[in-house]
């Protein structure tokens, strides 16, 4: 049998060597097995650009640091820029009607983008002396010496910047006065910019500054000993409101002819009843401000005499938009009221609050949650009245455009913030498909193949070529909702930051279902967030009637000790089967145990902040399984701050049936003065390894040290834990460890002098590949460590192996302290890296590809053979035959091996690989702001025909051969007969 395997492997090698060595695909293959979805994330701010001529668009900035221009008609992205993870967009606006101005990085970077195509026009770096809030004011009709300045307050300074080229015009430093500016106001027509701020939170200051040169024209101040809470909100040109520090008094500030008047009004006078947690909403409505308390929202009108009149009281869930200036100097704003499976949008005019200018009821999907934000825009109807469109941001981060009581378009932008990914198999196909359907599909099938045949024989017209491509792309096969033989069709289940669960079909990436998890919904009392997504029930044999389900672990609160929220969700329907939250305990770690109960539910251990283990599911059966296995169950914790690794076991005495005390077994304390943990990586728990032996040149064998209980830890000297360049090569040392997590034994330790993080690593089988920066060489490096088991190395006697006298199949215990040996090698690598992953296949026979998420947001496939520590400069003949490559100092980057080909997965955060049933193939899902899915075959698809294999041609050949055989048979018969009569 061994021979047969060997033979087949050799044949396989021959076959693969015959094929081209590249893994690229042809242009017409794009979209056949991959899909790419572009998102922007939760919208923070939106600016409409709806001039009469040209395309109507809305410019948005999002929480994923994306600035984008969206088509108002269909919601598509015109252009989009993803800024770096630290380059948070603070403000966005339009200048000169053609530039999009963005202020980012806490007000230190100001950029202008060309509105139609999104190209950057200019960029200015603003330096400040201290941290402050960032403010941006783009005056619409201010001209100073043929220039329109933009005013930016950031870093304690007020900057005036030319909107044409981004040049500095002037700068006014407020840091000396130690004033914290809250608002910049430009009253229309005047040449004065007003800066309103607070000094030491007890004194109001208003500055009038000349727009031409930044000169201080006037400064008034008034002290208020009580202090303030929150932001100052301008009500009109010379009136401002703010809450005092106790949040019980509204201060009305009037600036009049150089004097500042303060006027106090108790919130309880405005709102009768409870007035806890009062805040002034930041919506700027002229003459009106809105107050929100725990119970309601009130609109308060400030009269000319300075009196506060409560105009209306609405429910606290109402969302208020900013005021929108209409043509006749009027202002309108929108209110959204949440109803059950519908929302009520009402637009009101500021001067006439009593009635709704417009009221629309829109049906809203229950799974989108509450409305979080609303932006409105108006258009002039044919009868010259005003129409309104509203852009709303929902709780699940989706973006909708409402117009005339209908949803014009929706964008599921929650998918831009995926936290965790898991997969689920689709249901098995039921027997009993109707005949008509089969016939139809048969006809279609034949037609498609005839077309393909035409294509291969170069007979197809351009129209037919297009039709062929269409058929290939929209193959109904790949989008079916049932399991397939090859295991390509699956459900990708994604947990997003909004607490929503999405199921995407791998065929075309469509959303099959989505659920806003009730247990993870953020309420006013607590902020909930998802942490982990695990497979809970994977029906195999005796529970096939059950649907598979997933476990979502979340946390309600911000600290580690906050209670956790658990829910179990059906993977086929998205229904929340069980809502176990908020549980009494917190969760800091989720451990999937390798045990299952009789209903195929996976046992899970949730470790809380007090190091107690909680067993799920909470059934007596699970408890008995765990009791039986608890002696061999361990866990460990990595305390990066303290620099400690601790290992735990289960204590015999337990407090309750489902929660267990931990006993500390071992600790590894890294010296705080020289080492700081920056990365830990373990093997994927579901990884399958085919063999423990590695056959090397000359038929020799090495035995891999394959342990799931191995963790890779990288530490750097504390000085070098900052960004690259913050430490000299002499100061920075990178140390990597391979640690057994059962016994705490350090299997291997290696020091890289003059190197520093960030470290990205991947651990698989018996090897770890990690990426870091070499300060001495000024280049990124990748290193590989392979670990081999010495205690099994003597198993080389063929006779003993034949009769089975070897210790290779005996169970291994970490306590037997197997002797290990390692091999390692380092190479230069051109790119900096965002994530590393490795391909995974069903049986682990296929060779591996490293999947490297590069800084350019692409995914590069690198053959594992390139990072083989046995590479040498001059490999021997035997080593060459084995496939060992000659050593080079740098790893090659083959442009064809980008699995994302022409796409970019903007803001790439993770790469997930899922084995398909077909051994040669691994499914790859990369996520960030964008989502990308494809299939890869690291050793080529040796076990299947390619997608575009021409069955029609094969059929035709067979038919032709059969006919030929028949004809020749008849001919030969005839000839024989003639011969016999001769």
């Amino acid at each position, binding site marked *: 049998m*061994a021979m047969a395997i060997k033979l087949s492997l050799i044949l396989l090698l021959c076959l693969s060597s015959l094929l081209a060595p590249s893994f690229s695909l042809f242009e017409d293959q794009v979209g056949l097995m991959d899909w790419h979805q572009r998102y922007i994330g939760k919208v923070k701010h939106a600016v409409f650009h709806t001039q009469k001529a040209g395309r109507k668009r809305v410019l948005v900035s999002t929480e994923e640091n994306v600035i984008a221009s969206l088509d108002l008609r269909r919601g598509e992205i015109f252009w989009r820029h993803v800024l770096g993870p630290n380059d948070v967009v603070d403000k966005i606006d339009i200048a000169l009607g053609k530039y999009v101005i963005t202020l980012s990085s806490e007000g230190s970077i100001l950029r202008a983008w060309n509105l139609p195509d999104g190209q950057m026009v200019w960029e200015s770096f603003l330096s400040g002396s201290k941290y402050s809030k960032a403010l941006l004011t783009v005056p619409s009709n201010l001209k100073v010496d043929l220039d329109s300045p933009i005013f930016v307050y950031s870093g304690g300074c007020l900057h005036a910047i030319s909107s044409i080229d981004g040049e500095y015009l002037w700068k006014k430093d407020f840091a000396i006065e130690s004033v914290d500016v809250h608002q910049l106001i430009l009253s229309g027509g005047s040449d004065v910019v007003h800066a309103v701020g607070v000094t030491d939170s007890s004194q109001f200051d208003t500055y009038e500054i000349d727009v031409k040169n930044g000169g201080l024209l006037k400064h008034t101040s008034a002290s208020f000993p009580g202090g303030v809470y929150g932001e100052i909100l301008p009500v009109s040109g010379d009136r401002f409101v703010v809450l005092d520090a106790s949040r019980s008094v509204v201060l009305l500030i009037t600036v009049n002819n150089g004097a500042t008047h303060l006027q106090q009004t108790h919130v309880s006078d405005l709102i009768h009843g409870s007035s806890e947690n009062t805040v002034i909403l930041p919506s700027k409505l002229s003459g009106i401000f809105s107050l929100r308390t725990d119970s309601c929202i009130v609109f308060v009108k400030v009269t000319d005499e300075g009196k506060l009149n409560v105009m209306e009281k609405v429910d606290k869930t109402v969302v208020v938009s900013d005021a929108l200036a209409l043509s006749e100097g009027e202002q309108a704003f929108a209110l959204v009221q949440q109803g059950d499976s519908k929302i009520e949008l009402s637009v009101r005019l500021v001067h006439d609050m009593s009635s709704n200018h417009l009221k629309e009821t829109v049906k809203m999907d229950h799974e989108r949650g509450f409305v979080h934000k609303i932006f409105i825009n108006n258009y002039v109807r044919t009868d010259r009245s005003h129409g309104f469109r509203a852009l709303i941001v929902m709780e699940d981060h989706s973006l909708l455009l409402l117009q005339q009581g209908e949803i014009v378009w929706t964008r599921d932008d929650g998918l831009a913030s995926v936290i965790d990914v898991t997969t689920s198999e689709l249901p098995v196909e039921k027997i009993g498909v109707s005949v008509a359907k089969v016939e139809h599909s048969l006809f279609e099938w034949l037609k498609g193949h005839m077309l393909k045949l035409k294509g291969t024989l170069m007979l197809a017209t351009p129209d037919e070529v297009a039709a062929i491509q269409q058929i290939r792309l929209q193959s109904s096969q790949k989008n079916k909702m049932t399991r397939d033989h090859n295991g390509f069709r699956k459900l990708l289940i994604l947990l997003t930051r909004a607490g929503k669960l999405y199921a995407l079909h791998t065929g075309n990436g469509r959303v099959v279902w989505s659920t806003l998890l009730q247990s993870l919904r953020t309420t006013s009392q607590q902020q909930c967030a998802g942490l982990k997504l695990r497979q809970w029930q994977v029906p195999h044999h005796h529970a096939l009637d059950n649907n598979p389900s997933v476990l979502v672990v979340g946390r309600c609160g911000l600290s580690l000790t906050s209670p956790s929220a658990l829910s179990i969700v059906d993977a086929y329907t998205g229904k929340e089967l069980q809502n176990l939250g908020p549980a009494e305990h917190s969760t800091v770690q989720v451990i999937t145990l390798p045990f299952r109960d009789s209903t195929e539910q996976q046992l899970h251990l949730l470790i809380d902040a007090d190091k107690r283990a909680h067993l799920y599911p909470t059934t007596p059966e699970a408890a008995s399984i765990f009791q039986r296995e608890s002696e061999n*169950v361990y866990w460990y914790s990595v305390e990066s701050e303290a620099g400690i690794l601790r290992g735990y076991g289960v204590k015999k005495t337990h407090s309750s049936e489902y929660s267990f005390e931990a006993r500390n077994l071992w600790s590894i304390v890294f010296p705080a003065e020289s080492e700081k943990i920056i990365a830990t990586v373990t093997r994927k728990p579901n990884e399958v390894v085919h063999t423990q*032996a590695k056959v090397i040149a000359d038929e020799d064998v090495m035995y891999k040290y394959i342990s799931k209980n191995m963790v890779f830890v990288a530490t750097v000297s504390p000085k070098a834990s900052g960004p690259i360049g913050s430490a000299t090569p002499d100061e920075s040392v990178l140390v990597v460890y391979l640690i057994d997590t059962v016994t705490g034994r350090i299997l291997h330790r290696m020091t890289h002098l003059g190197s520093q993080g960030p470290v990205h690593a991947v651990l698989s089988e018996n090897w770890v590949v990690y990426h870091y920066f070499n300060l001495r060489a000024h280049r990124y490096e990748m290193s590989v460590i392979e670990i081999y088991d010495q205690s099994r190395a003597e198993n080389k006697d063929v006779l003993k192996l034949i009769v089975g006298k070897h210790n290779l199949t005996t169970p291994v215990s970490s306590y037997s302290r197997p002797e290990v040996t390692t091999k390692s090698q380092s190479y230069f690598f051109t790119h900096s890296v965002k994530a590393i992953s490795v391909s995974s296949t069903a049986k682990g026979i296929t060779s591996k590809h490293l999947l490297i998420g590069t800084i350019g947001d692409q995914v590069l496939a690198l053959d594992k053979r390139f990072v083989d520590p046995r590479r040498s400069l001059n490999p021997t003949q035997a080593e060459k035959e084995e496939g060992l490559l000659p050593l080079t100092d740098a790893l090659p980057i083959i442009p064809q091996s980008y699995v994302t080909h022409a796409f970019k997965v903007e803001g790439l955060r993770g790469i997930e690989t899922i084995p398909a049933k077909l051994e040669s193939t691994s499914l790859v899902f990369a996520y960030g702001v964008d989502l990308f899915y494809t299939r890869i075959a690291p050793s080529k698809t040796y076990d299947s025909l390619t997608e575009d294999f021409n069955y029609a041609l094969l059929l035709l050949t067979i038919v032709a051969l059969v006919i030929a055989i028949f004809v020749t048979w008849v001919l030969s018969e005839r000839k024989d007969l003639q011969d016999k009569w001769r």
Partner: protein
Amino acid sequence: MMCVSVSANEMEKGKGVLGSRKWAVEFTDNSSTRDILDPPGFTRASPDQDDSSLTRQKKDAEANWKSQKAWEVAQAPFKNLMMMGFMMWMAGNTVHLFSIGITFSALWQPLSALQGVGKVFEPYKDNKVDLLAPKLLYIALNLGGMLLGVWKLNSLGLLPTHASDWVSSLSPAHEVEFSGGGAALY
């Protein structure tokens, strides 16, 4: 007496012909008509019975010829062996379609020849001819051919003679302990 005299070589080459032939009429043969009475006046008496010395001589000559032929047939695989060796040398030691084909034919030919030892020597069966020695030679030569094939198989690296052949698909040993965990989730 029915006689199908086909040499070993011919037999191999003409297997298809033999197999496809459904029937044959041997006009010289008369044994099949034994059941029917001879026509009156016809005496079944072979002429060789008349002259016994002449017959013996003839018989001796035939036996001689048969044993000679048998030895020839027994030595025939040697030529094959030489040719096979030459082809193997030509094929080289790398695994590809040609070398595998040659090796397998080198293994198959002696095997099929050994299966048909009795048939090959059947025409030379005679009471007076000792067929054991040629048979043994024939078998030995074919075994030699087979050995050559096995040696070639080994030199191609297709024989499980190394430890790697026995452990390459050995699945990893079961681990007693399980450990999980990691850094605290944020």
